[in-house]
């Protein structure tokens, strides 16, 4: 009956209880939904970067990253590529030939990363082919086809079938030239990537360089992201002496953002709940002050202070959980709906793309946050009840009974 009494007590002043319940509900809804949007944005940035060119794991010659010298290619890259493709936890592999060079058009010239790929393998690892605005991804009748980013095309004033001259250092230290024809223009969510990267068939590069196949980067796409560290360890055994890195190590800023966002989600919700504690405390204090006489009577007729404390505590937990659960349900429905339909932020697409995020955001929140939140609300309610409950048990029954 004590618990039933606590539940009934919170509905004595319906307006006041509803106001605090609405405050909790709207506070949680705002906090959870905003978190879900942020997490969706970071997830989009991570997923976009992985799908664009990062893949899950990359293999390099250990010194390659110092100066990206064409001569620092992976020893027996072809053999490694073949052994990785046979691995059952690996979904797809693309061996890339990377050369820093200059792209020149009749209009202008610009420094670019020349990425020599096998078109089919690259399409299996990354979604660059689905980002094509125009043309095809290297599969063309033209000699030395090239695929450029939209931003680079704009900078060099290129269109489909435009000619472009690539100049780059060869394996002997001299300069080679490769006349290419633009056969495709892609546009990803990163204008920076689109401006810097240009794809050619690696066979064309090998022919121009007069070399056997050389690879500077082997990009690996996994079947299941959960096995990232385990597969990395396996690959390290297959390719001793090469640098094997996960996407988190290659793009630490993204990994940091992803990890921080999880922490930030809890931190942000924590701040909202901390603010709500004051509101709940205030409501409960008013409720206790209004009932001095009644609480005095309860203690007079033989209710122990511990039971009075439990009654106030239960009232606070009920009040907070009612608002909390309504807030969680409304938030979950909103997040599920918008997570399904997506939120179209194309009106700020330019700003989002400069961060590497898609303009279409799909909010999501891990299930664990909802459970943790229920626990946090109970803890918050317990904290919020301390002052009102303390005030209640400090009453002297003989005096409290005579208050008006």
């Amino acid at each position, binding site marked *: *009956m004590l618990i039933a*009494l606590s539940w*009934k007590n919170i509905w*004595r002043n319906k307006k006041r209880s509803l106001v605090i319940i609405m405050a909790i509900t709207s506070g949680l809804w705002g906090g959870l939904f905003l978190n879900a949007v942020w997490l969706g944005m970071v997830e989009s940035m991570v997923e976009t970067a992985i799908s664009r060119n990062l893949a899950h794991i990359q293999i390099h010659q250990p010194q390659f990253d110092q100066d990206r010298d064409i001569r620092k290619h992976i020893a027996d890259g072809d053999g490694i590529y073949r052994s990785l493709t046979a691995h059952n936890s690996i979904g797809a592999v693309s061996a890339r030939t990377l050369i820093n060079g200059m792209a020149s058009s009749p209009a202008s010239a610009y420094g670019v990363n020349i990425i020599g790929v096998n078109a089919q393998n690259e399409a299996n690892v990354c979604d660059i082919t689905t980002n094509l605005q125009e043309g095809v991804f290297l599969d063309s009748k033209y000699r030395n086809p090239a695929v450029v980013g939209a931003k680079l095309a704009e900078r060099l004033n290129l269109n489909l079938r435009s000619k472009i001259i690539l100049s780059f250092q060869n394996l002997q230290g001299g300069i080679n030239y490769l006349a290419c024809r633009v056969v495709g223009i892609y546009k990803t969510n990163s204008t920076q990537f689109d401006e810097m990267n240009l794809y050619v068939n690696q066979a064309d590069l090998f022919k121009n360089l007069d070399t056997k196949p050389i690879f500077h980067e082997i990009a690996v796409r996994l079947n299941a992201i959960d096995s990232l560290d385990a597969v990395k360890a396996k690959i390290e055994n297959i390719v001793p002496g090469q640098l094997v890195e996960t996407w988190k190590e290659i793009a630490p800023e993204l990994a940091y953002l992803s990890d921080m966002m999880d922490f930030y989600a809890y931190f942000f919700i924590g701040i909202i709940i901390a603010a709500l504690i004051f509101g709940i405390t205030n409501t409960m204090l008013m409720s206790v002050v209004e009932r001095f006489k009644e609480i005095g*009577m309860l203690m007079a007729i*033989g*209710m*122990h*202070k511990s039971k009075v404390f439990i009654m106030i505590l239960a009232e606070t937990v009920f009040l907070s959980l009612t608002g909390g659960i309504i807030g969680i349900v409304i938030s979950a429905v909103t997040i599920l709906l918008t997570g399904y339909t997506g939120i179209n932020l194309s009106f700020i697409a330019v700003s989002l793309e400069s961060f590497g995020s898609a303009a279409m955001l799909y909010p999501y929140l891990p299930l664990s946050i909802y459970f943790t939140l229920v626990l946090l609300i109970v803890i918050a309610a317990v904290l919020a009840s301390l002052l009102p409950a303390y005030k209640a048990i400090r009453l002297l029954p003989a005096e409290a009974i*005579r208050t008006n």
Partner: protein
Amino acid sequence: MALIEIKNLNKIYNTIAVPVHAVKDVNLLIDKGEFTAVVGPSGSGKTTLLNIIGGLDKPTDGQVIIDGRDITKLSDSKMVDYRLKNIGFVFQSYNLIPVLTARENIEFIMLLQGENKQKRDERATELLKAVGLGDRIDTRPAMLSGGQQQRVAVARALASKPSFVLADEPTANLDSASAESLLDMMEELNKKYDMTFIFSTHDSRVMKRARRIITLVDGKIADDKKS
């Protein structure tokens, strides 16, 4: 042996600043089954005396011996248990729990005593019938008149099967008809169950019914009349 024996009772408030001697050298014996009114002008110490007898306040010195046990020596926690099991309270403004029905209000005290649901239900129903509210069992206090609420309060006071009932100005908020009716009922309970009632009152209607009137003036017993 008297039910309540009060020996050399003194209560001084604000012992350091401006001392107020609310109860002075009170000695009193109250037997089981008495229907006693403590009367006196405002500030005479009636409420203080009743609070001390009811264990809601501690005396500065003296003893309150109930059924052979000096309750002034009890710790706060033991005093709460003592009140729960031995003393019934009726307050001037009824002090029922507004969100509970008449039956639930009565059951609540038995719940604190640890009685099971069946016993609580049976006794609450029996008491509500005894105070003439058998047809208002599931009614909330707000739907009852002042007199009816005070009847529920009396039933609640009796629910714990106390040794005696302390009633502080129980008729102060009632109209004449309700007050007379309530007093009739209390007298009947007093006779039927040999229940001891001790009133603190200014009300002449209560004084007329009381079989013993203890008059307090400035904290001292000025008169003690039995009829």
